[in-house]
C-alpha cells in the first residue's frame, strides 16, 4: 500500500516537473531579456538600425524579414498542401499512387533542416540567380524569395498532414447526401468538405506559419544575412531566428546578448500563442 502511494506521488512529481520546465524556459528568457527591455524599451521594435558595435539595437528589419519570408512561404505552399490533403483524403485513399505520395511527404518531413539549407545553397540559389538576371533585379541569388521557396517545401508536409486530419473529420453522411443528389466530387468538396472544415484548415495553415517563423538553419543559409530593412522580395535579409543563429555566440556584452534573447522570447511567445489558439480551433471542430 505504501509503495503505491509513493508511485502516485512520483507520477504527479514528474507531471509537475514538465510544468516547471516550460515555466522555467519562459522565466529564463524573460529575466535574461530584461536588460534590453529596460534600456531599449519600445525602440527595440521600431528602430531599423542594428549595429552592435555602436550599441544600436533595432530589431525591425528582422521582424519584417521574418513576417515576409513566413507569409510568402505560406502563400506558396498552401495550394500544394491543400492538394495533397484532398488527394489523400478524397481521391486516392489507398493504392500505389496514394502510397507514393504519402511516403514521399513523410520522407520530405524527415530531411534535416541543415540539409535543406545545404541543397538550397548549391542548387536553388544558382537557379534563382538566373531568374533574377532575367527579371533584371540585382542577382544576389540568396535572399527572401529563396528562403521562402525553401521554407515552403519544408512546411508542405506539416500543413498537409494537419489539413488531412481535419478533412477526415467531415461526417460521411453529409458527403453521401451530397453525392446522392447528383453532386460531382468537385461540388462535394466545394460545397460540403471545404465549408465544414474551413476553420480547421485555417488553423492548420496558421500552425504551419508558426513552424515557418521559427525555422532556423535552412533560412540562415540562404537568406543572405543583411541587417537592413529589405527593399524587395529578392533582397537579402535576416529573420529573428537567423540573426540569433548568426550572432549569438559572438554576443559578448550584456545588452547585445539580452537583445538577442529578447528576440528568442518574442519567437517563443508568438509560437506558443499560435499553437494554443490553433489547437483549440481544431479541437472545437472535431467536437461538433
Amino acid at each position, binding site marked *: 500500500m505504501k509503495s503505491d502511494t509513493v508511485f502516485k506521488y512520483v507520477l504527479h512529481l514528474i507531471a509537475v516537473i514538465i510544468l516547471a520546465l516550460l515555466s522555467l524556459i519562459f522565466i529564463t*528568457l524573460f529575466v535574461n531579456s530584461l536588460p534590453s527591455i529596460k534600456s531599449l524599451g519600445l525602440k527595440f521594435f521600431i528602430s531599423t538600425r542594428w549595429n552592435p558595435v555602436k550599441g544600436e539595437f533595432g530589431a525591425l528589419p528582422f521582424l519584417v524579414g521574418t513576417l515576409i519570408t513566413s507569409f510568402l512561404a505560406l502563400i506558396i505552399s498552401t495550394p500544394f498542401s491543400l*492538394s495533397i490533403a484532398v488527394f489523400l483524403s478524397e481521391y486516392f485513399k489507398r493504392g500505389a499512387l496514394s502510397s507514393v505520395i504519402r511516403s514521399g511527404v513523410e520522407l520530405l518531413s*524527415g530531411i534535416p533542416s541543415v*540539409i535543406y*539549407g545545404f541543397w538550397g545553397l548549391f542548387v536553388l540559389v544558382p537557379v534563382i540567380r538566373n531568374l533574377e538576371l532575367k527579371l533584371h533585379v540585382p542577382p544576389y541569388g540568396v535572399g527572401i524569395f529563396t528562403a521562402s521557396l525553401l521554407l515552403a517545401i519544408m512546411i508542405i508536409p506539416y500543413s498537409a498532414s494537419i489539413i488531412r486530419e481535419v478533412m477526415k473529420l467531415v461526417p460521411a453522411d453529409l458527403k453521401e447526401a451530397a453525392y446522392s443528389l447528383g453532386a460531382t*466530387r468537385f461540388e462535394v468538396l466545394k460545397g460540403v468538405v471545404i465549408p465544414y472544415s474551413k476553420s480547421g484548415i485555417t488553423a492548420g495553415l496558421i500552425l504551419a506559419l508558426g513552424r515557418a517563423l521559427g525555422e532556423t538553419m535552412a533560412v540562415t*543559409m540562404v537568406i543572405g544575412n543583411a541587417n537592413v530593412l529589405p527593399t524587395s522580395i529578392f533582397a537579402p535579409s535576416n529573420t529573428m531566428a537567423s540573426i540569433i543563429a548568426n550572432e*549569438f*555566440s559572438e554576443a559578448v556584452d550584456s545588452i547585445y546578448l539580452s537583445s538577442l534573447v529578447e528576440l528568442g522570447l518574442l519567437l517563443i511567445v508568438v509560437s*506558443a500563442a499560435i499553437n494554443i489558439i490553433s489547437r483549440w480551433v481544431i479541437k472545437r471542430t472535431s467536437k461538433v
Partner: protein
Amino acid sequence: MGYQKDVKSLMEKEINKNLENNQSFIVNDKHIFFRKIYNILFKTSIILFSIISIIPLFLILFYVLQKGITAIDWDFFVKLPKPVGVEGGGISNAIIGTFLIILMSSLMSVPLGVGTGIFLSEYQNSKLAYVVRLFVEVLQGVPSIVMGIIAYLWVVRPMGIFSGFSGAIALGMMMLPVIIKNTEETLKLIPHSLKEASMSLGVPYYKTILKVVLPSSISGIVTGVLIGIARIAGETAPLLFTAFGNPFMNLNIFKPMNSLSLLIFNYATSPYQDWHRIAWGASLFLIVFVLFTNLVANGVAKKWKVEF
C-alpha cells in the same frame, strides 16, 4: 424483358417529346457537361500539384546521393577531419559526437517522457493532466533555436564552456513531447480488463503499471523514442552555441563536441571545395540514418502492434 423494352420505348418517347416541346433539356445537358469538365479539371490539378510537391524530395535525394557517394569510403568513417588544404580526412569525431549527444538526450528524456505519458493516461481527466497536455503542445512548438538559447543560459554560461552535455539538454527537451505523446497514445489502447485482472490477483498498483501495462505497450514507447531520435539527429540550431563543434575527437561530455549536423553547416558555408565534398558525404550519412530510424520506427509500430 418485355417490360423493360416497354419502359425504354416509353422513355424514348418522353424524351423526344421533351426535345420537341422545349429546349431546356438540351441546356440542362450542356450544364451537366460543364460540371463534368470542372470535375475533371479539378481532379487533374489536384494530382498535378500533389506530384509537383514531392519532386523536391527526389531532387534533394538524388543530388545528395550523387555528390555524397564519392566522398564515402572507409577513411571517411574512421579518420578525423584534416585541416584546410590537406586532402582526405574523415568525420569520425562528428559521428561519435552525434551518437553520444543522442544517447545523453535519450537518457534524460525517456524516463521523464514515459513517466509523463503514464501520468497522462492514468489521470486522463484530472485538471493537472489537462494543463500538462497544453504545456506539452506548447513545448512541441518551441522553435529549436530557442532551445539552444535556453541550454546556453542554463548550462554553458554558468559552466563557462561550450559542451556536448548542454547540447544534449537542448535536444532532450525537443525529444520530450514526442515521447510523451506516443507513450500516452499507446497506454490508452491497453484495455482496462488487463489492469483489472492483475489487480484482482492482488498485484499492487505500481507493479501492475510497471510489470503488466508498460511491457505490453513497449512497442509504442520504442516507436516514440525512435521518432524522437529521428527528429533530433539532424537538428543543428540548438547545437550552434551549446555543443559548438570541435575539429578533434572528444569523448568528454563537458567539452565542446562535434556533431554531423554542425559539421555539415560549418563545412557547407565554408569556401573550400574539399570541405563541401565531405559535407555532402556527411549529409548522405545523416539522411540515411534519419530515414532508416523512421523506417525502423514504422516497422516496430507495425510488427509489435498493441492489439487486444
